[in-house]
């Protein structure tokens, strides 16, 4: 069975390491924060100018001066620090953020990503996504393997306008975990009960399958 959003987040959380500074995008990536292993020290960066993001505030404790990059009211953890947007993207550009997790509409077998614009539709803007994908040392994409019509979103080349080129390192979709290698998508794990054949059928880009592919165990 395909993973739900919580399970995708949970699987991505396994990529975290103690001491990591992590930027989590809007949507599924945000949920990753809920699965940081107990005792592991992970600092969340919000690109609007915060290191040390905490959970949502309790009702009645919302602070209009304290939001995340998704404009949601949040809190901070001890050791947090505020800074301006130039320093925020400065530390991103300098590779100080260890891991960036974000969503995508399409990813290509070369690691290109498209997630900001659909021709013919109202374009809201790239926000900080282009900066993040161009600079992050390690980018994991959380996404659905196919669109609602069942068409693959893991492509030989993106059809939508790009957000960044050759930057995605890993994908955790509802069906599989894949690395982006010089030889295309490399299948690492599959969702429980999802066959390698189904993943092959739903991956339009070049897919490498080597040996036994284990199921993700939760």
């Amino acid at each position, binding site marked *: 069975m395909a993973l739900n959003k919580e399970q995708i987040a949970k699987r991505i959380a396994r990529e975290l390491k103690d001491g990591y500074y992590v930027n989590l995008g809007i949507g599924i990536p945000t949920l990753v924060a809920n699965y940081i292993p107990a005792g592991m020290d992970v600092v969340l960066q919000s690109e609007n100018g915060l290191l040390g993001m905490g959970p*949502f505030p*309790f009702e009645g404790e*919302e602070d209009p*001066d304290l939001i995340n990059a*998704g404009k949601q009211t949040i809190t901070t953890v001890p050791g947090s620090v*505020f800074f301006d*947007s130039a320093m925020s993207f400065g530390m991103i550009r300098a590779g100080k953020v260890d891991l960036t997790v974000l969503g995508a509409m399409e990813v290509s077998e070369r690691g290109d990503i498209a997630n900001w614009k659909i021709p013919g539709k109202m374009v809201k*803007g*790239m*926000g900080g996504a282009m900066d993040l994908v161009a600079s992050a040392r390690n980018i994991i994409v959380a996404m659905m393997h196919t669109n609602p019509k069942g068409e693959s979103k893991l492509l030989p080349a993106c059809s939508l306008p790009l957000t960044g080129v050759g930057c995605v390192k890993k994908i955790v979709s509802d069906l599989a975990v894949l690395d982006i290698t010089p030889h295309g998508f490399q299948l690492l794990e599959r969702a429980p009960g999802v066959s390698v054949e189904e993943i092959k059928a739903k991956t339009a880009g070049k897919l490498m399958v080597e040996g036994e592919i284990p199921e993700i165990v939760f």
Partner: protein
Amino acid sequence: MNKVVSGAEEAIRDIADGNTLMLGGFGLCGIPENCINALVKKGVSGLTCISNNAGVDDFGIGLMLKQKQVKKMIASYVGENAEFERQLLSGELEVELIPQGTLATRCLAAGYGMPAVFTPAGVGTEVADGKESRVFNNKEYLMEMAFDADFAIVKAWKGDTQGNLVYKETARNFNPLMAMAGRVTIAEVEELVPAGELDPDHIHTPGIYVHRIFQGRAYEKRIEQRTVRTRE
């Protein structure tokens, strides 16, 4: 040297049709509410506005959009605004979308007297169209130019009579960067104090960058996405 003005009306007195304005804030957080309201009241038009976002329909820059005061919007993200969308699709409004980090860094460049900066954001995308790119250490970068704005309008938490500014939490965002980048910088603050009351080790914007300052009134500080958790 008297930087203190009576209020928003006096602060924006010489902003004219066709000017380029920078407006601080991220979403509705840390926006110069008083000055925006005064600009709406003044009715100045044909403006180019540089701001990370464009407000919502009935708050922030959205109020200026509703009155069709904005000719061109330079921003990184412009969702959350139906009137904006309407004007964009009808061709009434020109929009330039640029990566958020590029927006921030082009402000920094202006404030630090650097005519251009290099960033990898947008390489290989349509953002790179028409821009000079350059490879350093096997990585490609775009050359992005410093902004040049007639006025920067920012909102700080506290300020002093010398124009020194302190921001609160994530309401800092673009404010200190734009404060440095305007030819004329106007700061509205929640609390204006005499020079010497702010800790000189902890001022975010030195007054040398600020030309006019006033204590704003009746801040609404609207929350765009109220998210909470429930007590167990």
